[in-house]
């Protein structure tokens, strides 16, 4: 390890200060609230109550996993084909992927209500050909749709980046050595894109598990995930201690999930970078 020079230290200082104030300090506060009661005395009461929410945790992780999987299945082929088109087309497509993110996440989610509702766009179109109205809103499917819709760009972008940077010579070499199209994808493209997959999964899975806005608007209160429970503890129940304890457990669970993910992606010890834990 080389010792960093003074200049480097100065350059790093703003971020270290930022991290201390807005990452480390809040984490310590979460820990403090989780392990105390409303009077501020040490207590494990909040931690003990967490058992009641086991089902909610499992439900959240399942929803997150399903939404992440769907995003991956949609994004992977898209990113692959996009990386092999003309540069101009690529630039435009990437911009189109990012375009929705220029608008507020809240408004985009809210507008799905009018699309999926019983007198919404889809159902009135279906009604004209004599189908429906179908119950598209206020169920688990609508929540998953909301998650996939909102977080899909975070899956596409890292996948696209890694595929666009992929060394074409490796693919050509595989072809020269007699690989078929599918074999190239399976043996060359896929292994090389693993870091992209890992960072995509991280960036989609984490916000999906902890979301509360999507479930409230598109789930109509039918789907209650851990984000909703935590939000309620802070906003309505005024029980910061339980809210903090739940957040802590959620963080630990996400960390475990990402640890498992890392385990898989680390299998080729040389491949590094990409995973954000």
């Amino acid at each position, binding site marked *: 390890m080389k010792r960093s020079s003074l200049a480097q230290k100065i350059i790093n200082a703003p971020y270290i200060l930022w991290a201390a104030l807005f990452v480390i300090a809040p984490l310590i506060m979460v820990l403090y609230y989780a392990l105390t009661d409303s009077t501020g005395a040490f207590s494990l009461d909040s931690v003990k*109550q967490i058992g*009641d*929410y086991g*089902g*909610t945790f*499992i*439900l959240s*992780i*399942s929803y997150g*996993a399903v939404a992440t999987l769907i995003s991956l299945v949609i994004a992977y082929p898209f990113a692959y084909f996009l990386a092999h088109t003309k540069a101009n087309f690529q630039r435009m497509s990437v911009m189109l992927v990012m375009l929705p993110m220029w608008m507020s996440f809240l408004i985009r989610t809210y507008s799905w*209500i*009018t699309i999926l*509702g*019983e*007198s919404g766009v889809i159902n009135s179109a279906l009604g004209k050909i004599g189908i429906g109205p179908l*119950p598209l809103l*206020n169920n688990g499917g609508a929540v998953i749709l909301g998650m996939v819709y909102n977080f899909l760009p975070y899956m596409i972008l890292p996948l696209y980046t890694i595929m666009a940077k992929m060394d074409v010579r490796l693919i050509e070499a595989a072809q020269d050595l007699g690989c078929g199209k599918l074999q190239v994808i399976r043996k060359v493209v896929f292994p090389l894109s693993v870091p992209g997959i890992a960072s995509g999964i991280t960036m989609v899975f984490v916000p999906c598990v902890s979301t509360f806005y999507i479930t*409230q*608007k598109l789930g*109509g*209160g*039918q789907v*209650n995930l851990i984000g*909703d*429970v935590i939000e*309620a*503890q*802070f*906003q*309505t*129940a*005024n*029980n910061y201690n339980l809210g903090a304890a739940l957040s802590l457990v959620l963080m630990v669970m996400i960390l475990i999930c990402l640890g*498992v993910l890392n*385990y*898989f992606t680390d*299998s080729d010890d040389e491949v590094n970078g990409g995973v954000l834990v």
Partner: protein
Amino acid sequence: MKKIICILLALVLVIAVFATGCAENETEETEEEAEEEIFSAETLEYYAGLGLEGTTLNVYNWGEYIDDEEIDVISQFERLTGCEVNYTTFESNENMYSKLSGGGVSYDIIIPSDYMIERLIKEGMLVELDYDNIPNYDKYFDKEDYGYFVDDEINGHTIEDYGIIYNVGTTILIYNTDYIKEKPDSWSILWDEQYKGKVLMFNNPRDSFAIAQAMLGQDFNSESIEDWDAAANLLLEQRQKVKPTYVMDEIFNLMESGDYYLGVYYAGDFELMKSDLEEKGKDFLDYAFPKEGVNTFYDAMCIPNSTQNKKGAEAFINFMLEPEVALANAEYIYYATANKAVIENEDYSLAESEAVYPPEELIANAQQFHDISSENLQYMSTLWMKVKGTSGSGVLYIVFFSCIAAVVVVIIITALKKKRMKKYYNI
């Protein structure tokens, strides 16, 4: 060439925006000039003479709970007093309480509801009003009809010492006449399986529990755990039977879309929905006061003890009681006002509405909310989480744990593979 065209287009756009902006400004100015003074000379003089010039006032109110169209109350107050108003909004009493009790903020005016005011008084978070600075109270407040709300005593003081009622209201059952032909008379219609998926409930524990409590004939402020358990069971039964959608302000869009048959909300909002529909030439909503009883509530203007400008706050309360201001607010919010000058005003469009001003026999079993112990509050919110919690979890558990098992198996297999590979390369 392309670049030049782009730049030109951008320029045109910018100029267009500026031009329309300027045009709007001009029309606004002329409108303002043409506007007649709505307040009397005495009123103008009174507020100008309060010496509030250069002070600031932090007002913390419910969303959509003050007129900002007809006369724009806040800017009128600023104009009359020269005091600068920072106006922020909250979406629930609990939300407001968390912010206020968390410290670090300072408000001069808050407008919470009944039970929350009691709690704030108990915890010493409000300051007493100086009625000498609020002369409009005696002139315009309808003490005959609404005085009973403020008679309760807490810590040896009445609520009147700390707050002045802004609006009053009740909860109400709203239904779609296209699908429900007969006026319902009971909350139990919300438990009717034939309306599965067509029911909107409060996404707020206290109001939802009140409906179940009314059906069970309980006191809304019960301190008995068994009562809360029974009410929670009833709500759970409703969730399983009719799968209600839990909403707050989204109810406006959802009820007006005609997709839902039944909803519960606050009485004034029913009139608001109805008038929204009228603008579109539709009329399919009606209301009922179920016989088991509704919740009557009031919101009152109070001054928290973090105030930095008590005199300004009292002037603001006084200003809110001015007949012109109160009328504009009442017409904007659609809730029942406690201001005599408005009720007696012939221009007031809601005076005849029985939804907003229900005769006593219609809301015979109505109950009020009071502050309940914090243990029970916490218990209620735990129960509420259970009511809204997971359903059909049996299958889910199986799927979840088989997934975990699969992951573990894959981990073991890859670990073994790795080991074998290592061995292979080592040799």
